[in-house]
Structures are given as structure tokens and as C-alpha cells.
């Protein structure tokens, strides 16, 4: 049981890493950033490319993936979302879906439809006690997520940049009128969120030892479920919801002969929650 919870927490970390990026984009611009899934998948493929060519070191792959993903995220923001700012919001959503579909196809066409193995090397301590064991990739996911969230928390609460970011979330026009370069904040927002998605892509790829064109789909749908459950735009809510969702999935998945598809469970939970609590589980 303890082992089950530990595994669920690791899974929850992955959801949370993805959800944070989605939530940052939604919080600032109210865009449902479906193409975030492609950013994640791109990260995994860039990691793979590096491991097949230059170096098989996971840290290098992670860094390359974060760089490539943040560039891609920025690219989407500038080329797709920026021109649509004063159009109705469903338009940027549809454009985002278009990017997602096109990018997934591009991955398939370039890398082929079949999964690749990904086993870049790295050294990280594993945990082994009498009641719970974590492999080294699991501890890496945990530590990376922890560090990322600590970094974000410090940035947002302790720095002037973070203050400007919070002001933009509350009233973007007004923040701009007071001299905050809103475009720069939006870019930074995409940069950070996308870098985390890229990192999540590499970590998950390493965890399951698999990379394939549609790997982003399920994780990002889950991330959407997570941010809805947590209340759209709320960071602590999202992190909490990520852990709850992962736990529920793991527990239900552990019931023998219960094979209802996991993805459907997540959405079932979301739909039911929305009917009874339209602002999400933890939304105000």
C-alpha cells in the first residue's frame, strides 16, 4: 500500500509538471493551451535525438529538451496566440488544437509511428527501505519536481518579476499601463511553462522507456483534468489535484479485474465534479 502511494506520488508529480504550464498560460491569458502536449512530446524527442547522437547523458538530454521546448512554446505564443489576442477566446483554443494535431503528425512523419526506447544514463540515488522502494528515476522525478516548484514559488513570491507577473494575472491591461512590459511577461510565462513540459517529457520517456508521437495526448488531457479539478488558474489547487488524481487512478487500477480505461476515469471524475462544483474541487 505504501508502495502504491509512493508510485502514485511520482505519477502525480508528472501530472503536476504538465499542469503548471497549462495553468500559467490559462492564468495569464485565459487560453486553453492544448498544444502544450506537443511541447512535451517535442521535449522527449529532442532528448532522444541527443541520446542517439551526441551523448547518452540524461542531464544533457534534459537540458536540451528544456531549451528546445521553451523555444517551441515561445514560437507558438508569438505566432499563434499573439495575433489572436483581441479575437474571441475560442479562436485561440481552436488554433491550439490545430497546432497540436499538426505537431503530432509531424512527429509521426519524421520519427515514424513506432515507439523508441529511451534509456539515457544518469546517476541518482535510489531509495530502498523495508516498506517502500523508489527506483533512481522515481527519486529523480520527485526531486526535480520539488526543485522546480520551489524555484517557481520563490520567483513568484519573493522577486519583483514575480510581483509583476502576479499583477499581470490580475489585470493585464492595467499592468501594461503602469509600465510593465506585458509581452515580456507573457513570453517568460511560456518559456518557463514549456521548459517544465519538456523536462516532464524526457522524464516520463525515461521512466517508461518509451517515446512515441502521441505520448503527449493522454498526459496533457490529464493535466487539463487536473487544472479543472484544482480550479482553473490556481497553482496550489493544481498540485493538490494532480496528486489526488494520480492516487485515485492508482488505487482503482490496483483493483483486480477492474479494467475501465484510466483516461476515461479521469474525465469521468472531472465531468462529475464540474456538474456538482462548477468551479472545480478546490476552486473558489
Amino acid at each position, binding site marked *: 500500500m505504501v508502495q502504491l502511494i509512493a508510485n502514485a506520488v511520482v505519477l502525480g508529480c508528472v501530472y503536476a509538471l504538465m499542469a503548471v504550464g497549462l495553468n500559467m498560460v490559462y492564468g495569464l491569458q485565459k487560453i486553453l493551451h492544448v498544444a502544450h502536449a506537443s511541447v512535451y512530446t517535442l521535449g522527449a524527442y529532442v532528448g532522444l535525438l541527443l541520446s542517439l547522437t551526441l551523448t547518452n547523458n540524461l542531464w544533457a538530454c534534459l537540458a536540451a529538451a528544456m531549451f528546445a521546448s521553451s523555444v517551441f512554446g515561445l514560437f507558438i505564443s508569438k505566432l499563434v496566440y499573439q495575433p489572436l489576442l*483581441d479575437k474571441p477566446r475560442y479562436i485561440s483554443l481552436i488554433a491550439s488544437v490545430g497546432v497540436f494535431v499538426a505537431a503530432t503528425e509531424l512527429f509521426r512523419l519524421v520519427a515514424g509511428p513506432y515507439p523508441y526506447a529511451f534509456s539515457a544514463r544518469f546517476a541518482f540515488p535510489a531509495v530502498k527501505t523495508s516498506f517502500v522502494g523508489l527506483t533512481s528515476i522515481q527519486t529523480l522525478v520527485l526531486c526535480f519536481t520539488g526543485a522546480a516548484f520551489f524555484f517557481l514559488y520563490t520567483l513568484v513570491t519573493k522577486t*519583483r518579476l514575480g*510581483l*509583476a507577473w*502576479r*499583477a499581470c494575472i*490580475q*489585470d493585464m*491591461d*492595467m*499592468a*501594461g*499601463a*503602469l*509600465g*510593465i*512590459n*506585458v*509581452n515580456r511577461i507573457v513570453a517568460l510565462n511560456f518559456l518557463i511553462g514549456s521548459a517544465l513540459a519538456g523536462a516532464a517529457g524526457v522524464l516520463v520517456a525515461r521512466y517508461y522507456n518509451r517515446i512515441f508521437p502521441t505520448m503527449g495526448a493522454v498526459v496533457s488531457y490529464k493535466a487539463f483534468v487536473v487544472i479543472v479539478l484544482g480550479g482553473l488558474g490556481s497553482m496550489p489547487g493544481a498540485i493538490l489535484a494532480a496528486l489526488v488524481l494520480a492516487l485515485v487512478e492508482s488505487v482503482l487500477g490496483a483493483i483486480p479485474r477492474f479494467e475501465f480505461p484510466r483516461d476515461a476515469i479521469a474525465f469521468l471524475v472531472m465531468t462529475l465534479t464540474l456538474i456538482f462544483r462548477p468551479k472545480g474541487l478546490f476552486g473558489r
Partner: protein
Amino acid sequence: MLLEVQNLYVSYGKIKALWGVNIVVNKGEVVALIGANGAGKSSLLRSIMGLVRIETGTIRYDGRNITSWKPWDRARLGIGFVPEGARTFPDLTVEENLIIGGVLSPHKRAVANAMQRVFELFPILKERRTQLARTLSGGERQMLSIGRALMSNPTLLLVDEITLGLMPIMVAQVFSVLCQLNSAGITILLAEQNVREALSLAGRGYVLENGRIKLEGSAQELRENEAVKKAYLGI
């Protein structure tokens, strides 16, 4: 000439908000924009700040054509904005709101000094400095909004419907602050429905109706104009 708006057209979808508006604001003046709700006062101020997309027309500030400038670049030039409804950041503290206002200052010391001056102007804000802006009263929020705009030492202050919903005693206080700021050298463009007060503070004024400039002149002329008397002064 500090600010010059020429032939400005603005529309939201199919609704036309401004039809070829021309105004001029000279350095050191207080200029009032008068008009009913929806006459286009807010649209005019927001387009000067760069917050609405304009169709045609030019906006010049201090000799520079800033028509296509971003709002934050205009703020950098010294344009301050006190919007309708205060629009303070509800989930930031009073202090944080002011820091955001001083975001353009390069030094922390400059921010601290500016904040000190704001606190001298509005002592109540000092008492409330650690409170979230959402917990302030309407009048306090207006003060915070003015204070926030002052943090960047603006040359031109755009003030939109600042007295809307305020108690009469607050209205008097706010106008005396504006008067003080003007004597300290800040140019003010003031959109007001409180016409009597606005015209007593302003040297000149424009009357907006359905997105067009209907009348312009000195405050004296406008006060004595029959149409203005009838429509806005209730005489």
C-alpha cells in the same frame, strides 16, 4: 504642446466609439473632458494610454508620434493612468500595488522615496499598507489608484471618472489632491461627470457627445454655455 490627438477614430466591433476626435493638452494645464456615460471619454483616455486599438488618427506626445506605441512604452514616456473604477490589483497588498506603480524606477531607493510621498499625500494608505487591495473601501481604492500612478513621477496624468460612486466629502478631498498635483507641475487630463467640480479645477474643457467633440473652450466659456448649463449643470 504636450499631447495632441488628431482625427481619432475608434470602434469596438460594429459600435463606433470615437469619430474624428481632436484635442490638445498643453504643459501644466488641467483639461476636462465632459460628457454623458458612453460619450467616448473613457475610450479617448484609453486610446491615449494605448489600451484600445485605434482605426485611424495620430497621437503625439511631447513632439513624438506615439500612435502605435505599446502602453508600457507610453508609461515610460511619463504618462500616468488612473482608470475608471480604480482597478487596483485586488490580490496584492497596498504596498505591492505601489511597487508595481514604481516598476519603471531603476532604484529601490527611488521607489521608497516615491512611496513616502504617496503616504504623505494619503496617510490612510500608510495605515493600510499590508492589507490586500480588495479589502479597501471604494474611496481608499481610488486613492491607491492615484498613488500608484504617481509612483512613476508622471508628466501627464490621465484621470478617468475618479469621483464615480464616492461620497461628497471624498470628492472634495480627491479634487484638492488633484489641484495640489497640478500646482506641483503635473499636467492633468480629466474625464468627469461631475461637471461643476471639473470645470472649477480645469482651465479648459471639451464636451464629448456620441464620440464627437461637440464644444470646446475655456472653463469659463463652458460654464456659461447654455447647452452645457442645461445638459450638465442642471440649470
